């Protein structure tokens, strides 16, 4: 359980960064923080693991204020992946790097060694590689592994996908999803709204040091007022459904205006297209074609939209 109670924070008592932030994150949640650079997201993350202490208000981890705990004690519960893996990596081999956390916590025993070996196996690392010679994506993966190996109950990620290519991003986030599935609470700051939509369940939007929205990802990312205030660009499918709902009265209120994923949108549009076809008096095809059906591709190559629509549309009950 992570609780922020009217937290105010600043760096070296200069400009206030957080201006009264409150929220509670229950165990096992997957929460994304969104907002522009400078909105206070990273500062909030630093407060979670005690790198920064609040000027006013309280940050509670499992009911204990971070001010009452040493950062090293917090490190056992809260794993933190920084945006730049190069700041974290400091050992000369991958294996040493993975053991480093246990050493720092004074727990480098046989059990730790076994866990390190298991992680090396799971991530497919070469244990004797020099971390500094790995490429950016592999270093990020190693930094994540060296946090994950400690099995913290809370995992904090500060822009985990920045600078990674598509494949590396999928890999890193896949592992994060696995860690979450094993019961860890995951809190991440992320600029890529597609990643937020794909992985997080809840989204907290910050703007100018305050929380401006907090709720299920898609509810928050569909809120025009929130998007405008925090200059967020919603994930593309959500954006498409919002634009369609606004521009086409016929689609407002239909599943098209509510679709969040590519799959939902394909299904919804296919249904609407079918309805349109039926409404126009064309013969609706008998065979209900699944949204992204493979054989249907051939129909597309024939090229004529209207006829394709007629033959492939789904009968509307």
């Amino acid at each position, binding site marked *: 359980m992570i609780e922020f109670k009217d937290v105010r924070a600043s760096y070296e008592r200069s400009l206030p960064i957080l201006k009264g932030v409150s929220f509670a994150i229950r165990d096992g949640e997957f929460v994304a923080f969104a907002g522009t650079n400078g909105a206070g997201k990273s500062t909030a993350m630093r407060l979670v693991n005690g790198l920064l202490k609040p000027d006013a208000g309280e940050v509670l981890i499992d009911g204990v204020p971070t001010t009452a705990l040493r950062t090293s004690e917090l490190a056992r519960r809260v794993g933190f992946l920084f945006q730049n893996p190069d700041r974290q990596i400091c050992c000369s081999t991958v294996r040493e790097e993975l053991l480093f956390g246990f050493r720092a916590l004074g727990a480098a025993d046989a059990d730790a060694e076994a866990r390190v070996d298991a992680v090396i196996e799971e991530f497919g690392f070469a244990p004797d590689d020099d971390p500094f010679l790995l490429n950016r994506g592999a270093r990020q993966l190693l930094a994540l592994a060296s946090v994950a190996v400690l099995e913290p109950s809370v995992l904090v990620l500060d822009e985990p996908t920045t600078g990674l290519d598509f494949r590396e991003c999928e890999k890193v986030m896949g592992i994060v999803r696995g860690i979450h599935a094993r019961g860890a609470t995951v809190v991440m700051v992320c600029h890529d709204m597609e990643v937020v939509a794909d992985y997080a369940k809840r989204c907290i939007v910050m703007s100018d040091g305050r929380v401006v929205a907090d709720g299920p990802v898609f509810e928050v990312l569909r809120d025009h007022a929130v998007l405008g205030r925090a200059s967020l660009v919603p994930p593309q*499918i959500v954006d498409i459904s919002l634009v369609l709902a606004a521009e086409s009265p016929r*689609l407002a209120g239909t599943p098209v205006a509510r679709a969040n994923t590519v799959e939902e*949108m*394909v299904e919804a549009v296919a249904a609407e297209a079918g309805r349109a076809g039926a409404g126009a008096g064309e013969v609706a095809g008998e065979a209900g074609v699944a949204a992204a059906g493979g054989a249907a591709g051939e129909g597309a190559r024939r090229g004529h939209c209207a006829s394709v629509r007629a033959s492939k549309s789904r009968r509307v009950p």
Partner: protein
Amino acid sequence: MIRITDFSFRYREGAAPAVSGVSLAIGRGEFVGVTGAAGSGKSTLAYAMNGIVPHCYPGDFYGSVEVDGMDTCEAALTDVSCVVGSVCQDVESQFVTSVVEDEVLYGLENFAVPRGEIESRLTRALADMGIADLRERAIASLSGGQKQKVAIASVLALRPKVLVLDEPTAELDPASSLSVFDLLARYARQHGTAVVVVEQKIALLARYADALVVMEEGRIRFADAPAAVLSHDEELVRIGVGCPRSTTLVNRLRAAGVCSGRAARTVREACDVVKEAVA
């Protein structure tokens, strides 16, 4: 403007060539996006255009890279720099001064731009990047997006014929990334400057670039208009590039027989496709 012929390059410490057998032509005023998975050679390709390869990173250079008729391998880096403006990946470390105005002045002074012209070029470059009001500010006090714009303005002031940027939006939030691309695209149109952007964010490239170059293991896999490249969505995902969701959506709709036509690059285009499909 840029003519790359059968270009290959192997870094001195590298075992395999970073780029091999690349040929590419980029015209005046074109906005070209270069993308690819990590290690696909996209940065090396950009470095070859601005002369950083082979002048700063030695290695084996094959073929030729010509910019505005000048061979970048034979010409001195300073001469290449007169034609090609470069913005490197880590803007933070490339500032040579601490105030915006001085940063833009730096290149102007070095390339001996006539005194009478300096002020107008300075104001113009700042205006083109939409940061005229930041002129007196200390660079350290700026946000990431503003810093990026200062770095670009300090190069634009030199009026290069080609602008090469290496991942200009890597550290920026979506709103600032969008604004940087907006300004670059407008600049390319207005001044006929060829702009080459190495970028990971495919959705931005798809929306703004006139042409998309996709690299795979040192070779060009695709080089075409974005819509044409994006129609190969499965292939793109396979080589680690990914696709904008708008494109995936329209491609799936086409596969499902709901619509036809070419690949959508943007949310706007996808919306139009859907509207037409349900009309």
